[in-house]
């Protein structure tokens, strides 16, 4: 097991390095001078050169990358051009908000997804299966930003039950687990949960169907094991994959939350990205993407390790 973990880390390290390179180059992809956003329009050539040197932009690209990476490894993601605050602290606050939203959404999606998946897998080709499959197809086909708007139209604009935007009363930037804040979480979380629900129910349906058709289940039934006993076996065999998918979905939601966070004005990483893009705050853009991508790489690693630990069929060599 330890060899497996080490091997997996050894594999993730170059990927992480590649990710950092992509994030670094992202800024250099951007058309125009990265300084134009902070320099006054009437800046002198001297002033420009000074700023260039201050940001290290006068050095060759590989050197810039090396210096940048060195800083990043020390936890310095640079300074936001728009706010003047360190990027890390801006991202940190946003990540915790996004994480809450994405976790709750994943949990909802996982609960309903496994439920629909089990129902469909057990009753394959019945009308229940078709209904569950339809829900799954809906979940993976619906533009979630539109679904968010529809939910706002129904539950906020028309019925007035839930707040349409924000993370808390009076534009509260930090989410807090109380009744008032909870109301703000409902709509974005449900909107977001639709994607993992669709994916997980599709996966679980296929898993359950496969397992029920396997010889060992027939053997268990033939031995006179109760239906509940068979069910327990199915759960045990489906769990590692389902949990792995759930972990990955959490990563996708965290990285892909920008559209939903924009719809609901949720003060998370997506919202931050949006602001960074439109203020052309490149250090903030770069830092946010780097943090999210690294989170995803780490999550992938964890999922692999957990899945391997749970599933005896996967060889750990």
């Amino acid at each position, binding site marked *: 097991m330890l060899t497996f973990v080490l091997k997996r880390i050894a594999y993730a390290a*170059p*990927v*992480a390095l*590649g*990710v950092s390179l*992509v994030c670094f180059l*992202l*800024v250099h*992809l*951007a*058309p125009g001078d990265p300084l134009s956003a902070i320099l006054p329009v009437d800046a002198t050539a001297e002033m420009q050169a000074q700023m260039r040197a201050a940001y290290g932009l006068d050095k060759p690209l590989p050197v810039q990358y090396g210096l940048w990476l060195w800083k990043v490894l020390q936890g310095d993601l640079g300074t936001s051009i728009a706010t003047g605050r360190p990027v890390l602290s801006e991202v940190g606050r946003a990540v915790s908000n996004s994480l809450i939203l994405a976790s709750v959404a994943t949990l909802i999606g996982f609960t309903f997804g496994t439920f629909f998946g089990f129902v469909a897998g057990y009753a*394959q080709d019945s009308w229940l299966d078709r209904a569950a*499959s*339809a829900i*799954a*197809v*809906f*979940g993976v*086909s*619906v*533009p*979630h*930003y*539109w679904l968010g*708007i*529809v939910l*706002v*139209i129904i539950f906020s*604009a*028309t019925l007035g039950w839930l707040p349409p935007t924000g993370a808390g009363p009076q534009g509260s930037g930090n989410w807090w687990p109380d009744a008032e804040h909870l109301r703000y979480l409902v709509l974005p979380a449900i909107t977001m949960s639709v994607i*993992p629900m*669709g*994916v997980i129910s*599709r*996966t679980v*349906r*296929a898993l359950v169907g496969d397992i029920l058709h396997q010889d060992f289940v027939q053997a268990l039934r033939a031995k006179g094991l109760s239906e509940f006993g068979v069910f327990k076996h199915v759960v045990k065999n489906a769990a590692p994959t389902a949990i792995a*998918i759930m972990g*990955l*979905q959490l*990563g*996708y939601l*965290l*990285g*892909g939350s*920008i*559209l939903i966070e*924009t*719809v609901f004005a949720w003060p998370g990483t997506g919202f931050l*990205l*949006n602001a*960074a*893009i*439109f203020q052309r705050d*490149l250090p903030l*853009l770069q830092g946010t*993407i780097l943090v*999210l*991508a690294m989170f*995803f790489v780490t999550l992938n690693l964890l999922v692999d390790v957990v899945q391997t630990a749970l599933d005896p069929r996967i060889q750990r060599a």
Partner: protein
Amino acid sequence: MTTPTSLASADPGAAAAAPVEIAEAPIQAGRGYWGSVLARLVRDPVAMAAAFVILCIVLAAIFAPLIAPMDPFKGSMIRRLKPVGDATYWLGSDELGRDMLSRLLYAGRLSLFMGVLPVVIAFFIGSGLGILAGYAGGWINTLIMRVVDVFFAFPSVLLAIALSGALGAGILNSIVSLTVVFVPQITRVAESVTVQIRNRDYVEAARVSGANPFRVVRVQVLGNVLGPVFVYATSLISVSMILASGLSFLGLGVKPPEPEWGLMLNTLRTAIYVNPLVAALPGVMIFLTSISFNLLSDGLRSAMEVRQ
């Protein structure tokens, strides 16, 4: 109802992570492979319904100038946000008093173009890279697949937004960003299928006949790889539609006043209290297109996978 068994299309990253099985589908006598796939596909009512919807949307977009009752750009300050069912504006009017029906029809042009084109380009580039990596093996494979791994480390929505965010708003930039998102995914599928095919006896028999590698790939490998990769690519169109409109929704794609479903959805957000039905309409179009492509892709997959 089709019975979708893959993880495709929610996040294409998740889909590509699943191993791709190559089905040696039974072929009906005298029809060739694609002929028999098509024969099974036309017997799938859901897939046919989806194909019909797509056909209608595509035709409506192509012939928008002939069908649209009004000029999609001409607004009227006094006729803003008319409700659905209005005598003049059958589907209402938008926040600038432009006819919704006309705009929705015209918007299909850009939305479909921006949703489908990245997948088409990525299909060619990704298949090429994947077949090269899978067939050549060795360091070429390592180089290509490690780069692919790096791109897989980004959730696709994040990558698309990061790239268009850095490149700046615009139709071309959106298409480039989405293409970059899909190339690694198609490459990975094409590589894994090619590796499976390349070890088949018939490819080895062709190799030992002394044919040069290009001929072996063209005659023996290509046809067997492109089928599964094509099906995978069709499942990406649905994602691509949602993402492309999403970019415009964020203001990173099409710029006003061009009609595009995602952009319309965004500009109409202010109208949700006044005229909610009209505000939701562009999303209905995105959803309809996306789910149709998904169902058609599912149907195509099962038509190719049938075993006897």
